[in-house]
């Protein structure tokens, strides 16, 4: 169970400093400095970094819980990415610098190398918040060995792009750059980074789903048609009940992934199955849930002025990242088939 003080701290910061206007301005290119500074002062972005490496030394569950809150507020800052970067650096016993960070590559087949001359080589697409980051934590190979490298963003060629979420998704060229620090990380490769990053996205998505349920319920109580709030119509009630089910399932699935990462890190069958199940289930909930939320909101929810799109655009963007539903379904299906029919139930109940 996450530490409630950490969750309360995060909630307070987002309530105070992450308003609708903050999100809109950030999407137009204005860095939300006050929000980031408040988060950084509370060491929330470095929750997964041990004390001796410059972090807060909190539990895995705490970091995930902060991401759930960040997702609720559509926080336009690289808090997930900085958490992941800090975690990555810690795997290689590297200290985390202050300031926002991000990670690369974001695809399992991303191939970044460090040559004998110490220079990096490779290009990464769709790197979240690269233009806002002071540093990028990179999973690379050096002479065939897995390493983690810390690279200063100002040394890199970054071409800006925007994801479906409305957040920066930039293309970064590492060619010719020199790392600030490099550490051996024999067990880490881009697939392992993808696994924990997928778990992180499920938390943000579960948070965004909670938000759209709240907004939809409130809207249905406020909006009057045919002489009564639309919440009183059974067709609307059935839709919202359906949405509540999807939101609950997403929350449970995301919790399952977070719990598995907390217990097993990124190694083994149990965490692989838990993250696959979660990213897929939450992705399904995102699609179905966003559709219902928009239906309930009618034309109002389709305007820029309304904030529903802060959450629904992120849901549509995040469900593609670090493996979409199809990728994880196929992988999980192959794992199940390989074990055989009579192993299905033991597989579903493993770890409990």
């Amino acid at each position, binding site marked *: 169970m996450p530490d409630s003080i950490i969750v309360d701290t995060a909630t307070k910061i987002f309530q105070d400093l992450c308003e609708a206007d903050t999100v809109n301005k950030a999407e137009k290119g204005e860095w939300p400095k006050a929000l980031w500074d408040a988060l950084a002062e509370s060491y929330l972005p470095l929750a997964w970094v041990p004390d001796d490496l410059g972090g807060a030394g909190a539990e895995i569950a705490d970091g995930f819980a902060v991401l759930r809150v960040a997702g609720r507020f559509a926080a336009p800052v690289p808090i997930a990415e900085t958490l992941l970067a800090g975690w990555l650096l810690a795997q290689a016993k590297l200290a985390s610098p202050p300031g926002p960070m991000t990670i690369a590559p974001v695809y399992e087949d991303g191939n970044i190398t460090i040559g004998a001359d110490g220079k990096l080589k490779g290009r990464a697409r769709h790197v979240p918040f690269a233009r806002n980051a002071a540093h990028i934590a990179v999973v690379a190979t050096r002479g065939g060995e897995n390493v983690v490298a810390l690279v200063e963003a100002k040394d890199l060629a970054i071409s800006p792009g925007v994801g479906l979420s409305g957040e920066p998704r930039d293309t970064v060229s590492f060619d010719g750059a020199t790392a600030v620090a490099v550490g051996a990380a024999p067990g880490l490769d881009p697939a392992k980074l993808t696994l924990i990053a997928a778990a992180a996205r499920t938390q943000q998505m579960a948070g965004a789903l909670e938000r759209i349920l709240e907004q939809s319920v409130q809207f249905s*109580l406020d909006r009057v048609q045919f002489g009564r709030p639309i919440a009183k119509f059974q067709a609307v009630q*059935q839709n919202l009940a359906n949405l509540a089910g999807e939101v*609950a399932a997403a929350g449970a699935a995301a919790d399952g992934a977070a719990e598995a990462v907390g217990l097993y890190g990124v190694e083994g069958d149990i965490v692989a199955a838990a993250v*696959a199940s979660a990213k897929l289930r939450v992705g399904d909930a995102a699609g179905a849930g966003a559709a219902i939320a928009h239906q309930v909101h009618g034309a109002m929810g389709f305007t820029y002025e309304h904030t529903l799109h802060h959450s629904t655009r992120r849901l549509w963007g995040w469900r593609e990242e670090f493996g979409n539903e199809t990728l994880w379904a196929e992988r*999980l299906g192959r794992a199940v088939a*390989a074990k055989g029919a009579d192993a*299905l139930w033991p597989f579903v*109940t493993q770890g409990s």
Partner: protein
Amino acid sequence: MTSTFQFDPVELPPECKELRQEVRAFLKQEIEAGTFSPGGGRNENAALFAKKVGAKGWIGMTWPKQYGGQGKTQLERYVVTEEMLAHKAPTRHYSTADRQSGPVLLRYGQEAVKENILPRICSGELCFCIGLSEPNSGSDVFAASTRATKTEGGWLVNGRKIWTSNAHQADYMIGLLRTSNSTPENRRHGLTQFLIDMKSKGITIRPIINLTGAHDFNEVIFDDVFVPDLHMIGEVDMAWKQASAELAYERSGPDRWLETLQSLVELIRVVGPEPSERQAEGIGREVAHLATMRRMSLSVAGMLQAGKTPAAEASIVKDLGTNFEQALPNKVRLMAPVRGDSAPDSNDDRFEQALNYTTLIAPKLTIQGGTREILRGIIARGLGLR
């Protein structure tokens, strides 16, 4: 304001892990002994199987020892229940009493009844049925009109219950009967729960064969059936107050999402270790939904153990779970290997039996124990919409 429902995470304690292995060993032994065959559909050894499960102490296992129970936790009961269901064990003889009737008696029954009945449920002897639906009272439970009229030393029951599963095999029914008229202020007023001996004079049971060809449910006719005062459960006219806790137990269990799992299991067998892309994706998708359902169901068991009454959460589990299990056979069908013009042709009898059986039972899953529409109404109430 928050409209998000609470699904507290649960970690199963070590004793549950040991218990799971014990249940699996027991089931393996009973399958080998021929007591039942998994996936065999209805099984006539249900009464014998109940005695064996009772001897293990797994019926009424959460009830106090003085009534024949074991004083175990809801989580331990959850583990036993899901293992039984996942292995298609014939739990029909005791499952209603274990899940619903026993807990109602334990909470609201009179002491002498508890002492007499509960230990016999725990031993696997007694089979229960539930008398709720009537010809004019289905989802609208509080419209029940089967009447109990006060008489010397008890009540006289007249009327009809319908869709009563297992009535023809049950020793007792817990029936919801009208003892007063409803009031303008409260249309739920005036109903009382009774324990009814199914061997009583004046009860006629007529089979209703369902579309699978099986005899599961019945019509039960009461003609001046005497029920002693001792068998009244809880307060007269106030049954509606007793219903919500019962429903939380009924609606969140593994039986609400495991009923058609066999179709997926047999598909995996037919597909083999190297599925096509289409099959791998389809199987993975169902397994992810299954794993999430299980986590939610387990969470409700944990909240019940903690003394909460998660009524809306239980309805969410049943709504999602029954939709999942209902849709599964059709998804399995479309994932199956296709041959010529007779798709799906797996060349495997076991698969076809599982698929056919689950396809046939699928329609009832979102009706029994509270229809999808009723459940969503309860969830909507939980959201503050009504």
